[in-house]
């Protein structure tokens, strides 16, 4: 008998399973369960993007691309970053990856030495910590607070910096809180970093999903910051292309070259069909993106208003497609809240604790669902609160 506990690497066995998975597995066994759990758009990829992919297949464009990605796609990425976020990059500053996730992995591996510290503001997307740990880096968490609109403050950043600090993860617009960093917030962070050698991994995957009059600002667009920032973005959220697995990193040439070396060894090149499709996405889908943003924005207002009315204090998120209501008033832990809601009313949401300790006392609700679906699920949550007198 093979003893796999001894055979598997310590690093792999010590990885904690995602707290989101657990609830999905529970929910999957309940046929009438309605979910507000997923972190991907409910829209289909716009047809013109799919059409381009079909044409690429018909024309037999089925080989590897250059390791860094199709030249034309990288050029379009540069044009897009310029036009939307005033970022100036050339082809050699861009690496096309298998989703934003691969770009995050490569950036951390290319930058972090064992023992070096990676500052991670929480609550946040679940991948930064395990990748840091696998690399031998040391995660240093900063708990962002609702009273700061879940923004990273320069004071807290200063406190977290040590001589070992190598990298700051800047995950805004934020999953799960919906918090964003405005220009003045970023300027204060940049001011702390300018005199240091600390790099920034700015995960801007939700950059097109910012609501109201606000527009996303990239920290790399601030004076002196492009040279110390790796911008991560991708097609999944903006163009509803999650299954196409395509993202990219843009940053200083030396960092992108190092990331490309790792990418060469473990991926070779991102999916070719997806790359051709992505050129169309960047060139001609602004209207489709705006239509999706308008719809998310309507849903967000509906969900925030109803949750607040039923007594769950809910921060009005400025970006992404999640709300992060506070459930402390119920006296339940976020895990208990979600478990009981699942069993009593068959509604699946994610406990805030899955996004870091500071997410405790909150739950994440996704509004990547139709209005009628949201309406039904919100009614059930309201019943749950009323019946339990909480």
């Amino acid at each position, binding site marked *: 008998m093979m003893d796999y506990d001894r055979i598997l690497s310590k690093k792999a066995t010590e990885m904690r399973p*995602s707290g*989101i998975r657990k609830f999905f597995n529970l929910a999957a066994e309940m046929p009438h369960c309605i979910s507000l759990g997923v*972190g991907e758009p409910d829209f289909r990829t716009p047809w013109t993007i799919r059409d381009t992919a079909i044409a690429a297949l018909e024309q037999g464009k089925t080989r590897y691309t250059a390791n860094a990605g199709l030249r034309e796609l990288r050029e379009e990425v540069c044009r897009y970053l310029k036009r939307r976020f005033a970022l100036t990059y050339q082809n050699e500053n861009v690496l096309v990856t298998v989703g934003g996730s691969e770009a995050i992995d490569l950036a951390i591996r290319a930058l972090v030495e064992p023992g070096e510290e990676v500052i991670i503001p929480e609550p946040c997307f679940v991948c930064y910590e395990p990748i840091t740990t696998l690399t031998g880096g040391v995660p240093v968490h900063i708990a962002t607070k609702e009273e700061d609109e879940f923004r990273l403050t320069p004071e807290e950043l200063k406190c977290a910096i040590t001589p070992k600090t190598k990298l700051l993860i800047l995950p805004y617009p934020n999953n799960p809180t919906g918090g964003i960093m405005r220009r003045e917030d970023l300027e204060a962070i940049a001011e702390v970093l300018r005199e240091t050698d600390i790099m920034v991994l700015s995960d801007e995957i939700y950059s097109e999903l910012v609501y109201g009059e606000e527009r996303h600002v990239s920290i790399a667009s601030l004076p002196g910051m492009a040279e110390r920032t790796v911008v991560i973005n991708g097609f999944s959220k903006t163009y509803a292309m999650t299954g196409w697995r395509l993202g990219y990193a843009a940053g200083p040439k030396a960092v992108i070259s190092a990331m490309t070396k790792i990418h060469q060894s473990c991926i070779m090149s991102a999916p070719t069909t997806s790359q051709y499709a992505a050129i169309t996405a960047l060139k001609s889908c602004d209207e489709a993106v705006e239509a999706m943003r308008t719809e998310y924005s309507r849903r967000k*207002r509906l969900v925030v208003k109803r949750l607040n009315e039923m007594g769950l204090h809910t921060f009005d998120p400025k970006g992404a497609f999640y709300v992060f209501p506070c459930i402390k008033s119920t006296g339940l832990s976020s895990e208990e809240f979600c478990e009981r809601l699942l069993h009593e009313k068959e509604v699946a949401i994610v406990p805030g604790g899955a996004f870091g300790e500071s997410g405790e006392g909150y739950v994440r609700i996704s509004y990547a669902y139709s209005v009628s679906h949201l*309406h039904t699920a919100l009614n059930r949550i309201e019943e749950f609160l009323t019946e339990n007198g909480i």
Partner: protein
Amino acid sequence: MEEFLRIMEKNARLPLEEIAAMLDQTPEETAALMDEAEEKGYIHGYETLVDWDQAGVNRVEAMIELHVSPRKSCGFDDIAQNIAAFNEVDNVYLMSGSYDLMVTIKGHNFQEIALFVAQRLSPLDDVISTATSFVLKTYKRAGRTYFGEEIDDREWNE
């Protein structure tokens, strides 16, 4: 108003409070918009999308292409309004292309519709010819599919 109409087009049955929330308005403001839209004829009414097949009720629907002779003074409007006045008629459209008016009509059976075309529609003075096509199966109506709800197969992949 445009945003209100866009939301109403798909969600007319939602409580007023929720439509107001989506518009970032008070329910009173939204109620006023609703009154205005109905008064000014931006909203002509609210229809229920019944799947009669699913309900096991016999219903037949036909689309009738009409050639008519327009009149000098009022073009197609008079004859179209006369046809629209029949209770049996659901929709009347003036069309570009090879015929003039498209009329849709619902009945309990084929015979009922055939009689309507033969006895009421064809004899009208201005009607030159009719071509009736029966609907065999509905796949989509007013933006809703009739072949079962799409299954949400998204996984929790985070």
